[in-house]
């Protein structure tokens, strides 16, 4: 039974909701909401010491099972071939605004002294998992390639497809040169499993999970994101309007 007051409240709530949904369809209103993203990013960067590290946990703190999300098995023929070959011919291409474009064999990447970090992965959906990551600092790769002073963003091109669209992500140079930002090839003491991004994935520990591109095959330095796919800096950003800055 619905009381009269309940009926009025439900009606009012319906009107308000209708209003919210209408507002949500208005480009101007969404633009206003979006300006909060810049405010949040500016404020977080303002209060963050440049050397602030994400917490590194101990072995005992690790999730018993590290769940995967998004693609768990890339569907392209190329990827299937690489998987059959044990990624023996996988190379990481580094190009764009760099002095020395690179194409680094996976074996070489794994042989360089690397970083091991036990960190927490926070999904935009709300869950968290703690895992151990083994990989090379992105800053070292970018320095080896001779990053141009014109470069402002680093774009990560991935081997997996969502529908017919390639997955990609991007970060600015502050995150790219953060000491915990690594191109990981190992997880929890083993080579990366396919579901978690084999053979290479990004770890960008100050941001949410969808920024941590998996199946990375190419790193591109650019001065603007405008001309990269949809122009918003990532697959989810282009297609469902996730924030490009995912620090919260």
């Amino acid at each position, binding site marked *: 039974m619905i009381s009269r007051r309940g009926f009025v409240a439900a009606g009012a709530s319906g009107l308000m909701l209708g209003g919210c949904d209408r507002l949500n369809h208005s480009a101007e209103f969404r633009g206003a909401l979006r300006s909060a993203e810049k405010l949040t990013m500016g404020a977080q960067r303002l209060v963050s010491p440049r050397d*602030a590290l994400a917490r590194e946990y101990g072995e005992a703190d690790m999730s018993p099972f590290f769940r995967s999300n998004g693609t768990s098995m890339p569907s392209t023929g190329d990827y299937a071939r690489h998987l059959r070959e044990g990624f023996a011919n996988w190379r990481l291409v580094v190009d764009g605004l760099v002095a020395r474009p690179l194409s680094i064999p996976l074996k070489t990447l794994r042989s360089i002294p690397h970083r091991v970090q036990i960190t927490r992965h926070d*999904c935009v*959906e*709300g869950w*968290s998992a*703690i895992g151990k990551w083994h990989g090379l600092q992105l800053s070292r790769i970018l320095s080896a390639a001779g990053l141009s002073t014109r470069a402002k963003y680093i774009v990560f091109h991935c081997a997996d497809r969502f529908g017919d669209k390639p997955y990609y992500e991007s970060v600015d140079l502050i995150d790219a040169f953060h000491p915990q930002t690594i191109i990981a090839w190992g997880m929890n003491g083993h080579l990366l499993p396919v579901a978690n991004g084999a053979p290479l994935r990004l770890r960008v520990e100050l941001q949410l999970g969808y920024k941590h591109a998996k199946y990375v095959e190419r790193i591109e330095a650019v001065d603007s994101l405008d001309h990269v796919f949809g122009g918003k800096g990532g697959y989810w950003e282009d297609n469902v309007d996730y*924030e490009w800055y995912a620090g*919260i």
Partner: protein
Amino acid sequence: MDEPVAVDEPIEDEPPPRPAPRIAYRHRLPTRLWHWLNALTVFVMLMSGLMIFNAHPHLYWGQFGANYDHSWLSFRGRPFPGWATIPSTYNLAAARRWHLAFAWILVIGLAAFLLTSLINRHVQRDLAPRPDEVKPGHIWHDIQEHARLRFPTGDAALRYNILQKLSYVGVIFVLLPLMLLTGLAMSPAMDAAWPWLLDVFGGRQSARSIHFICASAILAFILVHLLMVLLAGPINEIASMITGRFRVPPERNGE
């Protein structure tokens, strides 16, 4: 009052006219502005928050927590229906846009209200419980009076009673700051900038649980608050929160 009377004749038997209702200034402008700003902002925060919760309707204690881990509260599917969420259909990206934009309005409003209310002494004078008010006997008396729906009259209606003070202080100084800090503790960037957030709340997933519990407490406060407004006379109460002016209920006689 209905009888037509000749104007010039003195009337002996006429009962004394009812005293004009006493109007008192009860709510100052900053309080009123903040109240209505919050009436909007808190609902947007609650409803967009429920949408975000729908994306992963499981709560955990500790540093980590995902589907295979032990949760203390867990729902199937998407527990909160469209009429309770912003937007009304599943859209995590849009809900986050609303939530993280209105969070700024909530925080700036809270900071401005606190600053103003400390300077104009609203907090010290009106909100802070006096020592004699927090004696168990006094609180118990107020609870009984509320339960009998005997609300304060006369000058007492111009002051917050102890139950009001405790609820308002609880929301302003406990729940809202906890919402803010647990919200920040869910941010990977803030956990790096302010690692104490993780220590204070015992981990990101604990912070997320506390965030949800405090939001539930704020919703409970709003429901009781609205009920009290209805019982205490909604027109006078709402008008006083718009204009600041409150029609003082006359003292009860012979009681």
